[in-house]
């Protein structure tokens, strides 16, 4: 019996997140009831994942585990669920962030609580679905499903300019969806595999004519870097973040961006290793431009949320750089970076949200000396800022140093020497290290402007963090410290899968 549950735990968590909105719709329209019920569902999902990881899931196997394969539309489109280390790491991140977000939703969801929590759970379904779907068509469906709850979450509970932001988000994501849909169809028809099964397709992708391969690679890639986001498709993110309510921002930065990163790993690397090896250098360059460019953008913002949003763009650049390096360290670092950024950015958005909720302004110049009124907030903000600027012993450092090392030592980049003795990849790393300095600059500058110096007496009536807020932040920060001090606890989970992906690629490049 127990074993049956374990075997089907992926579909169980999906079903739980689908059932949740239905249950919520029968509840009375009271915020605290809806919140508690949603919290129960989210904890159920979290418990399921944890049990799965600690019992059935064997991290040392690179292959898919807990596979469930059902007929859906004939034999071509199937419901195939499964997870390897990469998926389970992302699912775990979602499962951790969900209860945290629900606790943080208390003040936002006062208005239309039922709809809000239903949308949140619908979003969960789609995100979890993306990470566990092993059928390309199912993957696409879950990917597109995310659009609907997200649009409403921004457009109904958002800030003053929410219509514009939600529409911009919708258009961008819709474009991404079209790209992916086209790519999926190209894959299906050109490969001749007669199935959408991702495992099968990844083997058949070599049979596709070269031009089709390049076309579908780029369609997928554009779709994923819109989501990641990366220059030049990143401008939806600051707008969406600024207008989105705090918990939605937490989820958006915490997990939705990782869908892009996950897609790159799963599809761009898994399906098209040759094309990746061909354009890897450009991707690395894109990563470096993101890291430094977004950090520069952060330095000139006057809106707190925009800083954190651009900071996400900057940190996701590491994922691109890591993937493009085609090394074990780079791959591993990219995954670690996604996970750790999920925790750190959620904490930062939470902190900015707590300030906004109390003051209703996001302009940095309106603040000053907030430590006096909100000392707890200051401590958490300091810790989160330090994590964001990759202080060693906090999780941000592990990912970034792995990526730097991977890109610097990459054999693949060594094929692109320059006259300056460093190869192109190394020059990207040297350039990106500028981002490390700039990150320290903008985070500490933000911290200084908001929390230090003479206090602004306008805010003397403010209350410090509530117990629920402290709880949320403590959980996030405890994980940040855990993974920073003992990175094996996370990297053990995904390392074999990351290595398996790498093996696909290294077969391609001549050593």
């Amino acid at each position, binding site marked *: 019996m127990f074993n049956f549950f374990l075997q089907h735990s992926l579909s169980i968590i999906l079903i739980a997140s689908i059932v949740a909105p239905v249950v919520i719709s029968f509840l009375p329209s009271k915020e605290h009831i809806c919140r508690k019920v949603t919290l129960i569902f989210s904890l159920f999902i979290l418990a399921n994942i944890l049990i799965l990881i600690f019992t059935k899931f064997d991290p040392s196997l690179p292959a898919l585990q807990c596979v469930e394969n059902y007929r859906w539309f*004939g034999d071509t489109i199937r419901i195939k669920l499964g997870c390897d280390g990469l998926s389970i790491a992302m699912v775990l991140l979602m499962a951790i962030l969900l209860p945290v977000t629900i606790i943080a939703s208390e003040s936002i969801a006062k208005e239309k609580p039922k709809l809000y929590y239903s949308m949140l759970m619908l979003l969960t379904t789609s995100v979890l679905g993306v990470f566990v779907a092993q059928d390309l068509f199912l993957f696409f469906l879950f990917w597109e499903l995310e659009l609907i709850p997200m649009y*409403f979450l921004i457009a109904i509970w958002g800030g003053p300019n929410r219509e514009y932001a939600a529409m911009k988000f919708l258009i961008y994501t819709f474009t991404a969806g079209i790209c992916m849909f086209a790519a999926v169809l190209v894959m299906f028809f050109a490969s001749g595999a007669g199935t959408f099964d991702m495992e099968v397709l990844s083997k058949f992708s070599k049979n596709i004519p070269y031009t089709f391969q390049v076309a579908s690679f780029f369609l997928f890639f554009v779709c994923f870097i819109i989501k990641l986001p990366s220059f030049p498709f990143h401008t939806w993110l600051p707008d969406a973040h600024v207008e989105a309510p705090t918990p939605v921002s937490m989820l958006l930065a915490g997990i939705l961006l990782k869908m892009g990163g996950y897609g790159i790993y799963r599809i761009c690397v898994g399906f098209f290793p040759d094309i990746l090896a061909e354009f890897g250098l450009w991707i690395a360059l894109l990563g470096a431009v993101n890291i430094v460019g977004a950090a*520069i953008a952060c330095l000139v913002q006057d809106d707190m949320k925009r800083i954190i949003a651009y900071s996400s763009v900057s940190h996701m650049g590491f994922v691109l750089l890591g993937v493009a390096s085609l090394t074990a360290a780079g791959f591993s670092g990219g995954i670690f970076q996604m996970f750790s950024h999920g925790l750190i950015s959620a904490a930062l958005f939470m902190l900015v949200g707590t300030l906004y909720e109390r003051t209703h302004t996001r302009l940095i110049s309106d603040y000053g000396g907030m430590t006096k009124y909100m000392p707890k907030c200051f401590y958490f903000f300091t810790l989160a800022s330090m994590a964001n600027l990759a202080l060693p012993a906090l999780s941000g450092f592990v990912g970034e140093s792995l990526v730097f090392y*991977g890109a610097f030592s990459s054999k693949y980049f060594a094929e692109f020497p320059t006259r300056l003795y460093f190869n192109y990849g190394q020059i990207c790393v040297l350039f990106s290290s500028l981002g490390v300095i700039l990150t320290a600059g903008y985070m500490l500058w933000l911290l200084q402007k908001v929390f230090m110096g003479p206090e602004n007496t306008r805010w003397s009536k403010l209350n410090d963090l509530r117990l629920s807020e402290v709880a949320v932040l403590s959980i996030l920060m405890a994980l940040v410290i855990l993974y920073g001090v003992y990175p*094996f606890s996370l990297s053990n989970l995904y*390392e074999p899968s*990351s290595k398996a992906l790498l093996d696909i690629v290294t077969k391609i490049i001549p050593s």
Partner: protein
Amino acid sequence: MSDSILYCSWLIAAVPLISAILIIFFFHSSKKLSAFLSIGSVAYGLIHSLLVLYFTYINPGKTIEVNFPWISAGAFKLFVGYLIDPLCAMMLVVVCSVSFFVQVYTHGYMKEDPSYSKFYAYLSLFTFSMLGLVLSTNLFQSYIFWELVGVCSYLLIGFWWYKKTAANACTKAFVVNRIGDAGLLIGLLMFYFSTQKFWSDKTTLAFSELKNAIDYSVHSGILPVVGVISITTIAIFVLMGPMAKSAQFPLHIWLPDAMEGPTPISALIHAATMVAAGVYLIARTYPLYVSSPVAMGTVAWIGGITALFAATIALSQFDIKRALAYSTCSQLGYMVMALGLGAYSAGLFHLMTHAFFKAMLFLCSGSVIVACHHEQDMREMGGLKKHMPITSLTCLIGVLAISGFPLMSGFWSKDMILASAWEHNKPLFILGSFTALLTAFYMFRLYFMTFSGKYRGHAHPHETTPSITIPLVCLAVPSVFIGLIGSPLIPGGDKFSSFIHFGETHLHHEWGMNVFIHELMSVQGLVPLGAFVIGTFMAWLVYRKGFALNTYIQKNLSFVYNLSFNKWYIDEIYSGILNKVILPAYRVLWNVIDKVIVDGVFVNGSARVVSIVGGGLRLIETGRGQLYALVIFGSVLFSIMFMLTKFK
């Protein structure tokens, strides 16, 4: 017994960490308990590290290294662990003892402060990070703790966050250090990348294997000594870390501002331990520098220039802590210069003696500041000798020690450095001796302005409490005597160099009074002594006898005076570049790229084109998300149906 004590030395670092955690989470409401925990933990560390020093001393050549894996990805592995060797044992004692006395002092200095417990928690955290840095087995672990001491320094400089100056200072300190750290990280990457094969079965970047790694890579032709990717470049990138941390020109700008933090912090972090970590790291990575003459030369000259440059600024400062800060900068310059000259033992010897007397000098300044009701301007002091006999006496000892009064600790270490400068590099000898003259002048200026003459301020100065004066007296003892272990006066001669040295060295030195006299009567002995005498005499003339040299320079050579008083305008130049060039350029860049090109042309532009071209589509494009969602789902459904008909 000795083994188990050595193998447990990780406890020296772990106990302060535990005490920090306990204070933060459980005992922050009890002042007594937090002080007790913090002081107790470092007292334990002091006893343990003294034992470690003793056992390392009686078993020469015995080193202990324990490593644990920290992360691995493919062939890339990183380790953390602890390494006990003479250098580490010496540093442990220095850090623990200074930290101990500073923490006792803190009780007196901070007892009125509402955040008293928090201060102790940070102190414990700092002690942990610093000890972790000292115990590191490899460069990578050093980097971890290197950043952690940086963040502790950040927290403690910004301890009084409500002061605008403190808020600026802590950000500045961290960002400047980050520049150095980025260089250090690149250096590490380049080094590891070039010697990858060598580390495959060893602890990555271990200090104990550094020399072999370099020999291996040079002999097998992977890494040239000079070139773009070479030992020299790596050494210079790695040097950027120590340059920032040890406040070497041109990255020195953060240290004087860091004096905005509470005085115990200035004594512990910004005089005795953390700023010396840069020197320590150069010593640890010494094989890298030794194999590249260019890198050695760079180190020596950066040190020498910093020593002179900071000393010239210290001449005209009126803030007592800033004057001491520039003096720290200058002394660190001496240490770096010594290492660059190949005088490994001399540089570390000066690190040790300086830690004691400079910590004491800062604590003295703190005592004065408390007595004068938080006045830091020396023009508002004077005549404090009458009111504060203990502070003035210990301060005099410190001043004598730093200026090189014969037989006091600073005398021995500075002489050692200048002697090796005489041997290897005459210009640096002249530079160093001139700096010694300036040092004697500005230190006695500080002493005379503060303690002699008439009191010029408006407070009612009084001797401070025992918890402040006792650490002063305790630190005065090593300030006077610690230098003797490196002197030829004790039986067996220079014990310090026989204990801590790089490469082969003769374990027995000449010793006796005759040797001392002989060494003193040479050029390299007489010149520094002369510098001390002249500097002191001039300070006495100017600040005791009213010989108006200072006002003369101020009036008639105002250019020179202003240059010194305004710190060579380095801060102005940097902030000008940052605020007038870099930030506006960034703003323009962001506006053009994000707002105009991407958002303006790409996004809104394409939307406009669409709306012009497809005016007729307005019926469908209502801007309602629901409709769009409907369209998407409709298309998806349609495509599914389409495929179903196709694949039966």
